[in-house]
C-alpha cells in the first residue's frame, strides 16, 4: 500500500536552519512605520447575530460494556462554525484545512472512515445508533455529496480524493479512477446524482492516519478526552474505526444557520485486562472489571480548555438493564423500585469508582419494557492533581445479549474454480430476538430491506441471474423486489452497481439473494502487488428502512449535547456485510523469467558442450593424464623419498604408493578424529 508522508515541517526546518545565518546577519526588524487608517467600526451592526452564533467545540466519550467481556469506547468530537455569510471566513476553533476543503470543493456532506477489524453485529449489537453510524466496512470508506453542477461532480470528487489523501496520509487518491467509485442513485443516501461513493477495502489503518485526524481537534491529544488515545492501546483492540463526518450548508439557497459541522468519532472495542484467572462467583464467570487507566493506560487530566462540554458516559443497554433487575430480584429481597433511583456508585451488582453527576434514562418506547441508561460524568472538575479515572467493577455475574438488527446480513461466495462463481447475500433472522418481528408486524406484513452493492468491473455479474430464496425456497424475483436499479459494469471504466429494495414477508427466517458472475481478465499492468492474494469486493450495505436506530432521551436536557444528539439522530438501521475475497486467474508472473532461465540453461549447455568437443584434443589429454598420474603423490612421501635418496646417495626412485598410504590414512584419520572431538568439545562448551 502506498503511504505518503507529507511533512511540510521537514522542508520548513531545513529552510529555517539554512536561513538562520541570514537572520543573524540581518538587523532586528525595527519597524513600526505606518499609521494605518482605522476605518469606521462597522461590525457592530452584525455583532448581534454573531454573538449568538459562535464556533463551538465539544468532546464526549461513551463507554459501554459488551456482552462478550469487551468494552466499547466511542469518542465523539464536534466542531461547528456558523455559515460564512454571517460569520466570515476567519475561525478560532474550526480546523482551517477542513474549512478550505469544504469551500474549495463545495462539499455539502462528506463522510470518511478508516476501519480496522470487523464489527461483530451478533455480539456487539446491530440495532443501536452506534452500530448503525460507527460500524464501518474494513479499510477506507468515503462518500461525498457536492454542491456543483452535475458535470463537475466527478472532477470535484477526484480533487477531493487527492486532497484527503494528502491530509490523512492514506491512499485515498486510488479512489479517483472511475473504476473505483460509483454514484448511487437513491439507496445509499438520498441525494440526487451528486453523491459519490468509494471504498478501499484493503487499506491498512494505523497511527499515521490517526495523527492527522487528531490535528483537526483544537487540543489534539494534548488535553481533554483525546489524551486517552494511547496508540498501542487503541490499536490493540478488536475493532477500530475513526470517522469524520462533515456537513455544510454554506452553499445553496437554504437560509438555515447550521453552518459547517465537523463530527469526528473514534470507535474502539477493547478487551479489558483481566489479570490471572477469570473471577468466578457461584459457578459463573464475572464480567471483567475495567477502568480508563486499565483500558487505555492513561487517565483524563481535565478537559480540553476550549471545549464547551467534556463528558464521559457509561451506557447500560436495555437488555443489560433488564438483566440487572433480574439479578437484583434474585439476590435480594424483591424491591419494586427501579434501578434508576438506586445508588449507581455502589450497589450489589457492580461498583463504579465515581458517582455519576447525572443519570439519563432513555424514554421508554412502546415495545420496550426497560430502557437503556446513561450515566454522565463531568470531566471539568478534574485536573492534573486529581485525574479522572472511571472504573467499573462487577460483583455478580451478569449475562445479557445485545439488541440485534432485524435480520443478520452476511455475504459469501459460491462456486469453485477460477472461471465463474456466485455472490450470495443471506439474511437470517436470529431466533433469540423477537423485536424485529414485532415491529414488522405492526407496520404491515412486509419487511423492506435496502441493499446497495458495488462490484468491481473484473467481476462480471450477470444481473439477470438474480434469484431470491425465502426460507430456502426459490421465489419469483419480481414479486419480492419493490424497486431495483442496476448499472452494469463497463470494462475498465466503471464498476457495477446494484441498488434494490427487497420486500420480505413478515416472520421470515432466512432470505437469500444470489447473483452469478464470470471472472474477468486484467491486463498485466493492472494487477496489484500480490495479486495471488485475491481481489476484494467491497462490503454491501444493507439498511432496514422500516427501523429507526435512535434512542430518545428524557427531554429534560436543557443543553443538547452533540454526543447525545448523535444517539438521538433518526437513522435507519444499517449493517455492512463482509468483504469478499475473489481469487482471479492471475498469470504466472514468474513465467517469462522461468522461460528465460530455462532457455539460457539449454543454450549454455549446448554451447558449452559444443565448445568442449571442438576444443578437446583427445591424444594430448591422455598423455597429460598419464604424466599427472605419475607425478601424483603426497608431498610428505616425496619429501621423505628425496631425503632418503640424498642419504643413500642414490637417485630418487618412484616409491610404491600403496606401501606408504596406510600410514597416511592413519595420520588423516587421527587428524579427523581430533578435529571432530574438538568441534564437539567446543559445541558443548559453547552451548552450556
Amino acid at each position, binding site marked *: 500500500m502506498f503511504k505518503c508522508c*507529507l511533512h*511540510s*515541517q*521537514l522542508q*520548513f*526546518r531545513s*529552510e*529555517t536552519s539554512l*536561513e*538562520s545565518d*541570514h*537572520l*543573524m546577519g*540581518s*538587523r*532586528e*526588524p*525595527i*519597524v*513600526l*512605520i*505606518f*499609521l*494605518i*487608517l*482605522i*476605518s469606521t*467600526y462597522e*461590525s457592530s451592526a452584525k455583532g448581534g447575530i454573531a454573538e449568538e452564533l459562535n464556533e463551538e467545540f465539544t468532546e464526549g466519550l461513551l463507554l459501554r460494556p459488551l456482552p462478550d467481556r469487551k468494552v466499547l469506547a466511542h469518542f465523539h468530537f464536534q466542531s461547528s462554525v456558523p455559515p460564512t455569510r454571517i460569520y466570515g*471566513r*476567519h*475561525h*478560532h*476553533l474550526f480546523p*482551517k484545512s477542513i474549512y*478550505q*476543503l469544504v469551500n*474549495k470543493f463545495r462539499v455539502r456532506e462528506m463522510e470518511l472512515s478508516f476501519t480496522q477489524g470487523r464489527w461483530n453485529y451478533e455480539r456487539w449489537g446491530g440495532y443501536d445508533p452506534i452500530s448503525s453510524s460507527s460500524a464501518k466496512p474494513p479499510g477506507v470508506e468515503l462518500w461525498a455529496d457536492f454542491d456543483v453542477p452535475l458535470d463537475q461532480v466527478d472532477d470535484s470528487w477526484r480533487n477531493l480524493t487527492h*486532497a484527503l489523501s494528502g491530509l490523512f496520509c492514506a491512499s485515498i487518491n486510488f479512489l479517483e479512477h472511475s473504476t473505483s467509485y460509483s454514484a448511487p442513485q437513491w439507496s445509499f443516501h438520498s441525494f440526487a446524482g451528486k453523491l459519490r461513493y468509494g471504498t478501499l477495502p484493503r487499506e491498512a489503518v494505523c497511527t499515521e492516519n490517526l495523527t492527522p485526524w487528531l490535528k483537526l481537534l*483544537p*487540543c489534539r491529544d*494534548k*488535553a481533554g478526552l483525546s489524551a486517552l488515545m494511547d496508540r498501542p492501546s487503541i490499536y490493540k483492540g478488536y475493532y477500530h474505526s475513526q470517522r469524520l463526518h462533515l456537513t455544510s450548508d454554506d452553499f445553496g439557497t437554504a437560509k438555515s444557520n447550521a453552518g459547517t459541522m465537523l463530527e469526528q468519532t473514534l470507535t474502539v472495542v477493547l478487551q479489558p485486562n483481566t489479570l490471572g484467572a477469570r473471577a468466578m462467583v457461584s459457578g459463573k464467570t464475572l464480567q471483567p472489571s475495567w477502568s480508563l487507566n486499565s483500558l487505555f493506560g492513561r487517565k483524563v487530566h481535565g478537559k480540553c*480548555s*476550549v471545549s464547551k462540554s467534556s463528558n464521559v458516559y457509561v451506557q447500560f443497554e436495555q437488555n443489560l438493564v433488564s438483566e440487572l433487575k433480574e439479578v437484583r430480584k434474585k439476590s435480594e429481597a424483591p424491591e419494586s423500585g427501579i434501578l434508576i433511583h438506586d445508588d449507581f456508585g455502589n450497589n450489589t451488582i457492580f461498583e463504579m469508582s465515581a458517582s455519576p453527576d447525572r443519570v439519563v434514562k432513555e424514554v421508554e418506547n412502546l415495545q420496550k419494557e426497560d430502557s437503556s441508561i446513561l450515566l454522565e460524568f463531568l470531566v*471539568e472538575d478534574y*485536573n492534573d492533581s486529581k485525574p479522572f479515572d472511571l472504573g467499573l467493577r462487577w460483583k455478580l455475574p451478569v449475562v445479557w445479549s445485545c439488541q440485534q438488527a432485524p435480520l443478520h446480513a452476511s455475504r459469501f461466495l459460491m462456486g469453485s474454480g477460477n472461471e465463474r462463481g456466485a455472490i450470495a447475500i443471506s439474511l437470517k433472522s436470529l431466533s433469540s430476538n423477537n423485536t424485529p418481528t414485532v415491529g414488522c408486524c405492526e407496520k404491515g406484513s412486509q419487511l423492506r430491506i435496502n441493499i446497495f452493492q458495488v462490484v468491481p468491473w473484473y467481476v462480471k455479474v450477470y444481473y439477470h441471474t438474480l434469484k431470491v430464496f425465502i426460507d430456502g425456497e426459490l421465489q419469483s424475483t419480481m414479486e419480492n423486489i419493490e424497486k431495483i436499479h442496476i448499472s452494469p459494469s463497463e470494462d475498465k471504466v466503471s464498476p457495477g452497481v446494484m441498488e434494490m429494495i427487497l420486500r420480505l414477508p413478515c416472520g421470515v427466517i432466512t432470505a437469500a439473494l444470489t447473483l452469478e458472475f464470470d471472472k474477468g481478465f486484467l491486463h498485466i499492468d493492472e494487477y496489484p502487488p500480490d495479486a495471488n492474494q485475491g481481489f476484494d469486493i467491497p462490503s454491501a450495505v444493507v439498511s432496514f428502512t422500516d427501523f429507526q436506530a435512535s434512542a430518545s432521551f428524557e427531554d429534560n436536557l436543557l443543553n443538547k449535547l452533540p454526543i447525545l444528539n448523535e444517539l438521538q439522530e433518526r437513522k435507519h438501521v444499517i449493517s455492512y456485510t463482509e468483504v469478499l475475497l475473489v481469487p482471479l486467474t492471475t498469470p*504466472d508472473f*514468474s513465467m517469462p*523469467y*522461468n522461460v*528465460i*532461465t530455462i*532457455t*539460457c*540453461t539449454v*543454450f*549454455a549447455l549446448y*554451447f*558449452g558442450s559444443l565448445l568442449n568437443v571442438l576444443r578437446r584434443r583427445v591424444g594430448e589429454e591422455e598423455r597429460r593424464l598419464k604424466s599427472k598420474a605419475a607425478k601424483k603423490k603426497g608431498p610428505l612421501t616425496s619429501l621423505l623419498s628425496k631425503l632418503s635418496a640424498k642419504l643413500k646417495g642414490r637417485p630418487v626412485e618412484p616409491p610404491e604408493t600403496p606401501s606408504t598410504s596406510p600410514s597416511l590414512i592413519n595420520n588423516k584419520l587421527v587428524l579427523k578424529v581430533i578435529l571432530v572431538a574438538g568441534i564437539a568439545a567446543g559445541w558443548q562448551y559453547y552451548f552450556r
Partner: protein
Amino acid sequence: MIYPPPLNLVQFSFLAISEQYLSILTQTPIRLINYRFRYRSPPPFREIDDLSTAIESSPILFPCHFRAVFVNFDPNSYTADQLSISVQAHMAKFAAKNSPACGTCASNVTVSVTLDSNSNCISNGNNVDWKCGALNEFKFAEKHEDGLLDEDFASLLDNNSGAKVYTVVAVKTEQEEVRAVVGKYRHAWIMGRIFEEEAIEKIAEIFVNVFMNGGKEEGLIHGEFMPLGADGRIVLSFNLLNADPHNWIYDWDFQEIDENLLSPVIDALKPLADVSVESQVLYHTPKSSFSFWDDRLDSYIFSTKDLPFFVNSNEWHLDTSVAAGGLSKILQFVVYVPSAKECPLQLQLPNGEISTTNGFISPMWGGIVVWNPSACLTDSKIKHPLRYKISSEDSRKLFEVFMGQLRQLFGLKSDGLFVGASGTSILLASERGFSEWELDVLSRQHSCFNLLQCGTTLGSLSRLVQSLPRMIIMDDIGKQVKYSLEAARLTLSNALLGIYDASAGMFYSSAIWMDCN
C-alpha cells in the same frame, strides 16, 4: 511460483551470453520500436537556446525616465542641459559602485531637467509637464507636514500620460536644515539652503539608490529570494499560537484586522502579486527551545543564537493551505503567546539589547512575533483558563510589526530612513504598506528573476531532451514549452519598452519542469 534468482555464477555468465544472442536475433524489431516512440513534439531547440543565451548573457535592464526640477535656483549659473549631463555623470558614478543587479535601470537613462525660477521655466526635454511657477505661492518658510506636502507634489506632478517618470524636486529655501524626503508616489523633494552641486549629487543618489535599487543595503534579502510564487500568488497565513491554553487563551478579531488593516496592503500589492489571507488559532503549541530568566531585565530571555530552534515544527501545525496549490508561495506569520512559565518572553539581540519589536523573520518562510499578555505578571493560579481577546490597539501594533516583516521579506527597508553618502533621506511610509516606487522596484526585480529562471529552465530542458533522444515529450508539454517561450519573448520585448507589469505567464516554464520530472 516465483523462482529465486540464480546465485550460481556460471549460470549468470550463461545468461549474459544468451542475452547477447537474443538481442542479435531480435535487434531489428527493438530498433524499430525505439524509432517509433521518439518524442512526439520536439521542442523548438534553437529558439530556446537563443532565448536562454540572450537572457543569460546580459542582465535585463529596464529603461527608466527621470526628471529633476530645480526651483528657485539661479538660472544663470547652469543651463538645463548642463545640469542634466552633470546629474547623469553622478548617476553613472553611483551606479558603478554596485554591479548592475537584475531588475535595475539601463545605463542610458534619460534625465530631463527643468529650471523653475521666478516663473521662468527652462527645460531640456520636450515632454516635461511641470506646471511652471506652481510653487510660487508656496510658503516655504512654514513648517510643513511631510504627508501633506507629498500629496501636494503628487497633484502637481500628476501626469496622465501613464509613463513612469521619477521626479526629484529640489527647492532652494531660506531654511538652514536641508531636508530630503522620498514620497509615497514616484517623487522626492529636497528643501533647504542647498547649492547646485550638492543638489545634483543628492538627486543622482536618490535616483540611483532609491528609485532604481529600492534603497537596499547590505544584509537585506536579495531580490532573487522574493517570496513570490511562480504564478504570482502569495498566501499570507496568520497564526495565533497559544503555547499553553491551561494558563490563558487569547483570541483575536481577525475579521476586523483583515478588513481594516490588511486589505489596503493587499490592494497595493495587486499589480505585483495576487495575495490571499487566511488565519487560524492554534493551542498547545510550545516553542521547541528553552528560554532563561534574567533578573536584570525581569523577563525570560531568548537569545538570537537560539532563534533557529524557536519554531517547533512538531507541534505547530501551521499547515499548508489548500488555497496555495502548486506554485503559490505561503508566508507564515505567527503571533506567539507564551505560557505562564515563560512570561514575559523577550528576544535578545546579539548586542545584548532587547528587541523592540520582539519578533524575527525567516526569509521565504515568514515572521514570528512574541506577544506577551498583560496578565503575564499577575499570579495565575486560576483553575479554569481565562479567555481574553487581543485588544484592537494591540492587534494594530502587532500588524504594524508584521507589515514591517513583510517588507523585509520582500527585501525592502522597514525603518523609513535611507542613509546615503550625501546625507540621510526620509522614506515616507504609505498607509498601504508599499509605496509606488517600491512596487516598481519589486516588479522590475520579479520580472527579471522570473525571466532568468525561465531561461535557465527552458535551456536545461532543451539540453536534457537533446541528450536523451529517447525521452518522450507529450503533446501538451510541447505546447506548454511553446507557450512559455512565447511569454518569455513577449516579456523580454516588453521589458525593453519599459512595461514591466505584464510579466505574468512565466510560471509555464516551472510547470513544464515539474511535468517532465
